[in-house]
């Protein structure tokens, strides 16, 4: 029985309808979680003993950073499935992920440097986490650049899938070498961008934000996925009925 479930996830009309039905079930809970996280993070959580209220940037920086990596891995996994079993829907998922991941990588970079500014006195510091985030942004731009460079959708799907898989294999290698490089040259005195030790009242809002952002990603992905599926279905008869819904 389980195989037919997986098999049905490969059929565009089924996934299109599923995506259409699920979107509100992800979007509204995401909004609620994010609002609760904001209220907890900005109002209820006490200031940090070291960074004062400056630490509250973590409630937007950490979720964005988590999104940038989680979306890339999701993209690479979908790309691998699409490449191995030749499932068009998987390639559609990968294509839908890229812009979302890239935009939150930019958010993570900017909020990271804004958060680091009070500590370092400058807006950019070659902190290992920020540097890895910057490289991740280039991986996204490379993926989207390759997709834009190839006209034929099927070939663009498969070529960018290879790049995504190669990229995800390199992400830990890059992160390790950047951290190793940073520990080598960095004077220990400069505080690195690490999460401060957090009391429960500080931690709960962060978990709410992380959950909210993840559900938000789900909702955004499903909307974009429908667009990508339509783009790949040419003039299939089932479209008429799906569009009427």
């Amino acid at each position, binding site marked *: 029985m389980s195989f037919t479930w997986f098999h049905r996830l490969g059929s565009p009309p089924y996934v299109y309808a599923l995506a259409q039905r699920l979107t509100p079930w992800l979007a509204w809970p995401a909004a609620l979680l994010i609002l609760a996280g904001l209220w907890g993070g900005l109002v209820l959580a006490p200031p940090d003993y070291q960074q004062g209220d400056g630490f509250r940037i973590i409630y937007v920086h950490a979720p964005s950073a988590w999104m940038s990596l989680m979306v890339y891995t999701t993209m690479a996994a979908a790309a691998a499935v699409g*490449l191995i079993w030749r499932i068009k829907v998987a390639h559609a998922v990968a294509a839908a992920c890229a812009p979302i991941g890239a935009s939150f990588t930019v958010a993570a970079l900017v909020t990271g440097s804004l958060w680091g500014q009070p500590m370092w006195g400058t807006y950019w510091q070659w902190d290992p986490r920020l540097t890895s985030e910057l*490289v991740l942004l*280039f*991986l996204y731009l490379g993926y989207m650049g390759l997709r834009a460079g*190839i006209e034929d959708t099927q070939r663009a799907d498969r070529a960018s899938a290879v790049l995504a898989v190669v*990229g995800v294999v*390199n992400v830990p290698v890059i992160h390790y*070498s*950047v951290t190793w490089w940073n520990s080598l040259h960095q004077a220990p005195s400069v505080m690195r961008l690490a999460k401060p030790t957090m009391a429960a009242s500080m931690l709960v809002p962060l978990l709410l934000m992380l959950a909210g952002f993840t559900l938000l990603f789900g909702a955004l992905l499903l909307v974009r996925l429908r667009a990508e599926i339509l783009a790949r279905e040419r003039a299939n008869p089932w479209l008429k009925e799906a569009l009427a819904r």
Partner: protein
Amino acid sequence: MSAPAVTSLANAGGTALAAEALPVTSLAAAGLALRRDLTLALRKPAQLIQPLTFFALVTMLFPLAISPQLSQLRQVAPGALWAAALLASLLALEFLFRDDSQDGTLEQYALSGKSLTALIFAKTLAHWLLTGVPLALMAPLAAIALGAPTAALPGIIAAVVLGSVSLSLVGSIGAALTLNIKRSSALLSLLTLPLSLPVLIFGARATQVAISGGSLIAPLELLGALAVLGVTLAPLAAAAAVRISLE
């Protein structure tokens, strides 16, 4: 050539299907591919010089941009050397597959019935022999020009030889992916540079240790590890990318 003569010759020239032609292993086929690329490159040496002149050119920029003081340049030498090496090897990558794709020989490799991964690895090995090794032999000149002590030269050569293996391998994936894209040199560097950063970091570190006279074991081991990772994964990805570009 009248018809009868043709049929009699056929048995001599064309071999009958029944007697299966003596097969060739993928390894032997890869050896042939390597020899072909080396022969082709030596027929047109001008193309071999280009990456080397580019490497010297970029190295020359640093003293002019920073300062003529060797003591100051020595600080920047490892980074300048490796940035120049990275860009030079990138330059030579674009035509790794493009010429073969345009004249149809790459297609024949894909249809050869032999492991395309082995054939692609042979082509990448030829690329490394033709660009990576010459760069490594030229690196000491650049290092001296940037104030490195002569004692550091063997270490620098070893680092560039080892590092350029990974550069060629990672580059082969980008070259295969952008095979059919016109004006793809910008995209090729966007795909290849982020994946080459670990090599840049460990290579520059090895050069720095060589200059300061420290023990080269650890940095060279890390460069070796990257090379092994590259050798095992890159040809597979590049072969898949070639098949996709031929679709």
